[in-house]
């Protein structure tokens, strides 16, 4: 069995994809993110991020979202094997 690699969305490289494992935030953040298409089990791709801990630009389903760095540091992702 291959070892699963877990990283936070903020720490992913551009163009890496994975599946959301969990959101380490309060109920408010969890429901807000899930309403916008980010919740455990969903496939997510990081497209790019701004310098200096700027927002992270992602795609989940057909929705593209810009997520603040702090929020992105609470989204744990299991990387796809490449």
């Amino acid at each position: 069995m291959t070892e699963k690699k877990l990283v936070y969305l903020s720490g992913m490289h551009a163009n890496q994809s994975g599946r959301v494992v969990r959101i380490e935030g309060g109920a408010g953040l969890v429901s807000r993110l899930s309403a916008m298409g980010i919740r455990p089990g969903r496939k997510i791709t990081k497209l790019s991020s701004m310098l200096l801990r700027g927002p992270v630009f992602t795609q989940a389903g057909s929705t593209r979202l810009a997520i603040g760095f702090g929020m992105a540091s609470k989204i744990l992702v299991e990387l796809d094997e490449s």
Partner: protein
Amino acid sequence: MACHGARSRIRKRGGRKSGLKKILLMGNPNVGKSVVFSRLTGVKVIASNYPGTTVGYTQGFMKVGDKMVEVVDVPGTYSLEPTCEAEEIALEMLAAGDAVINVVDATNLERNLNLTLQLLEKGIPMVVAMNMWDDVGHRGINIDLKRLEGLLGVPVIPTVAITGQGMKELVESLPLASVAKLPPSSHDERWAAIGSIVEQVQQVTHRHHTWLERLEDASVRPLTGIIIAAVILVGTFLGIRFVGESLITYVLDPIFEYLWTPVVLWLSHLLGGAGIIHSVLLGHIVAGEVSYVESFGLLTTGLYVPLAMVLPYIVAFYLVLGLLEDVGYLPRLAVLMDTVMHHLGLHGYAIIPTLLGLGCNVPAILATRILESKRERFIAATLISIAVPCAALQAMIFGLVGARGIQYVAIVYGTLFAVWVVLGFTLNHVVKGFSPELLIEIPPYRIPPWRTVLQKLWLRVSGFLREAIPIILGAILVINILHTLGVFNAIANLAAPVVTGWLGLPKEAVVALVIGFLRKDVAVGMLAPLALTSAQLVVGSVVLAMFFPCIATFVVLLRELGVAGMLKAAAIMVTVALAVGGLLNLIL
């Protein structure tokens, strides 16, 4: 139509034919509710390609069968758990409606269905408009509408609001709006239900990226993003200057010079060249020369300022802004600006109200409703009303200060920008609370049809003509009356120590500050006959821009910030304006 069978089945199950009075247009942000609204009611509202364009609600009427029904354009919301003021408004509206048209972005079915199911759980009669239906094919998406209609238990109508496709069918389906009451479910249950619906009705085939999509990605990568932003910024500035100046030089100035001046001179002759009526209507006319800027008559300055000085820049600004809005660039700018804006106590999305403020502060302050916290709204609204000059004010600054040399215009803008940065930085440290983080949907770029761009431009320009011209004429009338009564001297003498001693302006400039409360463009115009030095003109323009909001902005600030917030903001404005004006006076 393919889904006819499904619809007649729904009618049997739960359709209702009468009792429709108020229909709500609800859906996720940026799915095209406002465009649907305009199509249904004929009421024109501002629609753009970014989430959060609509922050209040607009009502209109349309005919369903032989009855007039009220339609409400509700701000977009991702769920029925509000996260900002605009979403709270959406939730409040829900209680008042008899039926909902749930506008869905067909290219984003899964995420949109979250709200659809939540609405169905509320047990309100509903019809689903599958909007942007023309885009579905381009994106390699295939949706089985008949199946979806069956699964949701309410009519589903494909629409392309921007072209009007499907609007007739949508209206016809309204009497069939049905209640498909679902039991309230938990988040997980709902997402599971959505997952199963999407799996049954939607197929996505892979296809290659278009050039527009490549540009989409490039504009939010750090390096290419900044280059693109710089190009757009310079292009925007040059575009506005070019359109504005061309309109003035080739259209409006000639109209006034060759067509209106003879009329004014004829009138002047008719009125005997002097007297109270002459000076109110035409101002002072010296030796057959009409000075449209300095004469301050209703038919001279009163028409020239709004039509020949301000209007060209209003047209130019809103043309360029409208293009940026409709293409979908603004949310990307918000992403690029996010890190910077956090230092000002805001997040990147606050750049959108700020840009709107360069047109008019009133819609800008309303647009701060897309920000999540009260603290952000206070900071954003204060910064806008103090350091973001509206297009009318800017046109006058370009017209009057620009005549002395572009370097003076640069000082005015540089000062306002510095105030924006320093004040934002200070407020971020002084105002309690924290600034929430950016979380926004980035819409795809769309190429807007010219017709919609021009329609929106006309909506804004006619709004300016309707709202500004009466106030400008009123302000000039008030100036003339006060002048005749000698009231100005009393005010001027009272404030002379500050205005003359500290700001280095002639005491008559006080009058401009007072009139600034009515219209800032007229107020800057009042500086023209005072024979100011270039430095004085710069100080005067800066102080006028910052000192106090115009009456329209004042009313909105009061409503949005409350009395206490407004008082705080006003105190900041007066203090900072005097401090900065005095400093400029010392330096220049």
